[in-house]
Structures are given as C-alpha cells and as structure tokens.
C-alpha cells in the first residue's frame, strides 16, 4: 500500500475576490490599479483622525450576485464588524469585515476533476476591505507602505473543508475564478492580486478526527496552489510519521524553492477582538432588491450548459468546455447567432480547436482574440456553402488571425481562394492530371489504392487546393473506374 493511500488530505479554501467597483468600499477614492504610491489613498483610506466610512452600494450588489449564482442564502440584515490588529498596511488598526452575520451563507459550486464531478459546499461569503501593500525593497532598511489598495472592496469566499486533493482544490479555485468573472463582480486578474486564495491544509488517517491545519497564504496562481499544497501535504505527512505534531500556523509558499515556510511576523497569538462597527449600521437587503439584481444577472454556466445541449445538440463535454469561461460562451453564442443553430457544432469545433490552440500558444485570453465571432461566422458560412474547403478555411482563418483582411470574403477574394466548382473546368483539369501521371494511373489499375490518393493530391495541387475535393474524387473515380 502506498503512503498516500494511508492519509486523507483535507483542504478548505478562503478566496479574496476584489470587487469590480469604481470607488472603494467605504470611501470615494478610485480603485484603479497601478497609480503612484498613496495617490489613491484618500483621508478615509489613510484613516486620518475623525474620518468615517460610508458603504458603497455596488459592493452589496456584487455580493448579492454571488449569492444568487451559488444558490446561497442572502442575509436580510448583515453586520459590519471590526477585526482589530496592528499592521502598518492596516491604517485604522482594524479591518472592517463581517463576522457573526455575513451577507452570504451556504451555497456551493460544481467542480470537475477529469471525468469526476463533485459539489463543494460554501460556508459563507462576506464583504470586507482590502489592506494596503508593504514594499520590502530597501528604503534605508525600512519597509514602505502604499495604501492605494487599502479600502478596495473584497468578497471573502470560504469553502467547507471538502477538497481531498490539490487537483480538487485547483478545480474549485478555477471554477470560482470563472464564476466571479462570469457574473462580472471581479476581473479575475491574479497577477494584480484581484483574486487570491489561502488554503487550509491538514491530513488525517481516513475516518480519524480532523488534523491540525496550516494555512498557506496568498496563492496567486493555480500552478503555485497545486505545488504549495502538494509540498505541504508531503511535509505534514513526514512530520507526523516522524513522530512530530503539526502546530497550527500561517505559512507562505516560496515559488523559487517550491516549499512552504511559517511566517515570522504572525507568531503573536491572534485575538482579533471582533465587535460590531459603531460607525456602520446594519446592511439591509430586501427581497425586492434581490429580485432586481436577479433580473440583471447573466444566464449562469450550469443553465447555459443545459441549453447548449438541448438547443444545439452539443455533448455534455462540449457544453461544459464552452461555458468554462464567460468570454468563450459569449463568443460562441455570437457566432452561432450568425451561422444558425445548425452550425453550432461546427462553431464549437472551431472554438475548441483552432481558436483555443492559438490562444494557448500565444497565452492570450478569448477577449483579446484577433478574430471576432462575426469573422469566424463568415469563415463557417463559406465552408457551408462550399465556397471553400476545410483546408482553405484554415488558411483563411490564419489570414484573419494575422490581420491580413477584414472578413473571410475579403481574404478569399484577395487571395483567389474561391473553390472551383465548375464541373467542366475540373474535368479538364482531371484529364490533364491523368495525362501527366500515367505511372500512377497504371499503378492504380494494378490495384494500388494509394496511387488514387496521389492523383487526387496532384489535382488539388494543380488548383492550389481550390478545387472541390469531393468533385475531384468523383470525377477521377468515374474516369478511372469507367
């Protein structure tokens, strides 16, 4: 029995999603990324004496959208609380968060690892403010504090400890990442820190009580998450097998070494002294408000998958793949609207084949694809009406991708790629090919099937691929078979 099988891994994730608002959660300062240090930190954000927070309505709208999209309960009344601790990037000495009564409770997410589907339950999601940033580059041996990020709205989404492997944790994080972008509450930019995960990891013997957990902080890529959890699990198993006890700790992942290590600065026993923030009143969310937000909510991925299967006859696999990302699904739907539902499968193939491959190769997002749904629909229309073959279509597509023309038709015209369908023209061509390739004709007649393919190839070559391959085949068969 291998060692992994003797241990069960227990993972819960806490995810901080920055909400896509113009202004901060409790002040009118901008949330735009990348300003010079402290130029987007207003009096409230730097906690001048006497300033007060006022809550941004849009942050609540984001929380409601999220709650609706995961089937959670949205609290009719939730409470802002102060989480008290000292840290230089926390200007008030407390973070405004939610504690006893969060805005969202329950709900869950469907995830897929390989062929296995699993439902991961959520504990809660609550609104809070982000902290500033500590810059540890050398300022005469000091740390520099930039408070531009302080007060950016966050939704902290807490899962139940239901993931059993790093693969499940990553699948959950990816599904959540796609969902928050899908419903438009977070830009999902992990490099800029818009979507950050903390993983609570413990191990136990199957059936035993939960082990002591260590929290891996600030995982800002899915690859690091996988590496960090894998390392942490092995480390914990080693510790226990060598007779040591796991101490509850906060750890950081070092991508260079691939290892996790305990943070030094958070050694102090935490005692956050939560209490209701007296500067903020209860957040009331009425059923009417929820209904209004619901009306503005886009169709959710699960519902869309069902519809793609029933309306377009797509496989469950295709439907899931196309709804993994809002941008992909939007692209698909816009293209299908032009080609008609009958070509949906063809659109899906192009999206998952040619387009996805190029995006992956170029590390681009669907939103940055140089080919538009309209252009793809134009290519497909010409395949369907036999103006071009599949092979030529790929050439046309490549030209579109490279920006060599504005539409499939323009490229076909400019590069003379229109398929030759005139039977008499093809017949003359076939005759020429047969005359020029007597050797192949003999071989075919002697029973060599391959020789036939060579003749087709010659004919296609002579027309630079523009002849309709089916017509060429039919004519060749007729002339040879007689």
């Amino acid at each position, binding site marked *: 029995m291998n060692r992994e099988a003797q241990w069960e891994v227990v993972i819960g994730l806490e995810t901080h999603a920055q909400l896509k608002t113009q202004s901060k959660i409790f002040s009118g300062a*901008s949330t735009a990324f990348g300003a010079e240090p402290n*130029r987007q930190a207003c009096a409230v954000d730097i906690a001048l004496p006497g300033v007060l927070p006022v809550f941004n309505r*849009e942050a609540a709208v984001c929380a409601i959208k999220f709650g609706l999209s995961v089937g959670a309960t949205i609290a009719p009344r939730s409470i802002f609380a102060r989480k008290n601790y000292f840290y230089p990037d926390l200007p008030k000495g407390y973070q405004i968060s939610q504690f006893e009564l969060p805005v969202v409770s329950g709900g869950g997410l469907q995830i897929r690892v390989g062929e296995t589907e699993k439902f991961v339950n959520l504990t809660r999601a609550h609104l809070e403010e982000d902290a500033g940033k500590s810059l540890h580059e050398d300022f005469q041996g000091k740390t520099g504090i930039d408070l531009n990020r302080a007060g950016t709205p966050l939704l902290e989404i807490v899962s139940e400890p239901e993931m059993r492997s790093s693969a499940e944790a990553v699948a959950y994080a990816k599904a959540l990442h796609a969902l928050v972008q899908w419903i438009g509450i977070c830009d999902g930019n992990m490099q800029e820190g818009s979507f950050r995960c903390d993983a609570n990891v413990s191990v136990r013997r199957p059936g035993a009580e939960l082990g002591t957990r260590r929290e891996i902080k600030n995982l800002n890529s899915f690859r690091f998450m996988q590496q960090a959890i894998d390392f942490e699990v092995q480390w914990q198993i080693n510790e226990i097998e060598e007779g040591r006890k796991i101490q509850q700790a906060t750890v950081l992942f070092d991508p260079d070494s691939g290892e996790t290590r305990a943070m030094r600065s958070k050694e102090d026993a935490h005692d956050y002294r939560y209490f209701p923030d007296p500067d903020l009143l209860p957040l009331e969310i009425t059923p009417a408000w929820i209904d209004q937000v619901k009306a503005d909510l886009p169709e959710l991925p699960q519902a869309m998958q069902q519809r793609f299967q029933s309306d377009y006859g797509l496989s469950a696999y295709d439907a899931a793949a196309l709804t993994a990302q809002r941008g992909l699904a939007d692209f698909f739907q816009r293209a299908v609207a032009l080609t008609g539902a009958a070509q949906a499968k063809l659109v899906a193939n192009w999206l998952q084949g040619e387009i996805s491959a190029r995006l992956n190769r170029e590390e681009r997002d669907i939103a940055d694809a140089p080919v538009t749904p309209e252009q793809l629909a134009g290519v497909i229309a010409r395949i369907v009406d036999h103006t071009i073959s599949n092979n030529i279509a790929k050439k046309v597509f490549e030209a579109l991708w490279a920006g060599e023309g504005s539409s499939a038709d323009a490229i076909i015209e400019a590069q003379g790629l229109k398929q030759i369908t005139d039977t008499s023209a093809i017949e003359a061509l076939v005759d020429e090919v047969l005359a020029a390739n007597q050797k192949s004709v003999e071989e075919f007649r002697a029973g060599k099937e391959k020789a036939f393919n060579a003749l087709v190839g010659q004919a296609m070559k002579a027309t630079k691929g523009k002849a309709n391959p089916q017509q060429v085949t039919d004519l060749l068969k007729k002339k040879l078979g007689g």
Partner: protein
Amino acid sequence: MSLNSQDVSRIARLARVELSAAENAATCDQLNAILGFIAQLQAVDTDGIEPMAHAVDVVQRLRPDVVSETDRRDAFQAVAPDVEAGLYLVPRVIE
C-alpha cells in the same frame, strides 16, 4: 475575576502599549478596581434582551459607486513622521 500582572502584560501587548514593571503593578490595581465596579452588570438578568449596538435603529445608507476623491497625497504626507518616494516608512517588516 481579577487580573494579575501577566494578564496586564498580555493586554498591553495586544494594545501595543509599553508598560514598565512599576506601571504594570499600578495599572493592575486600577484595572481591577474598574473591573470590580463593572462587575455589577453580571447580576442583571438580560435573558432575551437584544443587544443595542447603535443609538438609533436605522439601517446602513448606501453610497452610489462614484469616485469623488482627488489626490491629496502631498497635503496628507506633510504631517507624516517618515516618508520617501510617496511611501510611509516603518521599521523593516519580516514576513
């Protein structure tokens, strides 16, 4: 319940207030006097009473999502103890 000097040290550390040994002893006595005074609350029956966090029973007002603040860094940092390149400087933080 009454506090001993270790408790006072723990509270002072949590509050980030340095206390000398002499201050600790004096503080311990004063805090115990105050806690003794507020201990009378424990005798009151408050079963079923809803805690009152705010003086007025209203709900949170909602601010429209509009950027209303402009850059005032220079004015704000004019009163800062230690700044460089627009950053507030503190003793080196080790994570």
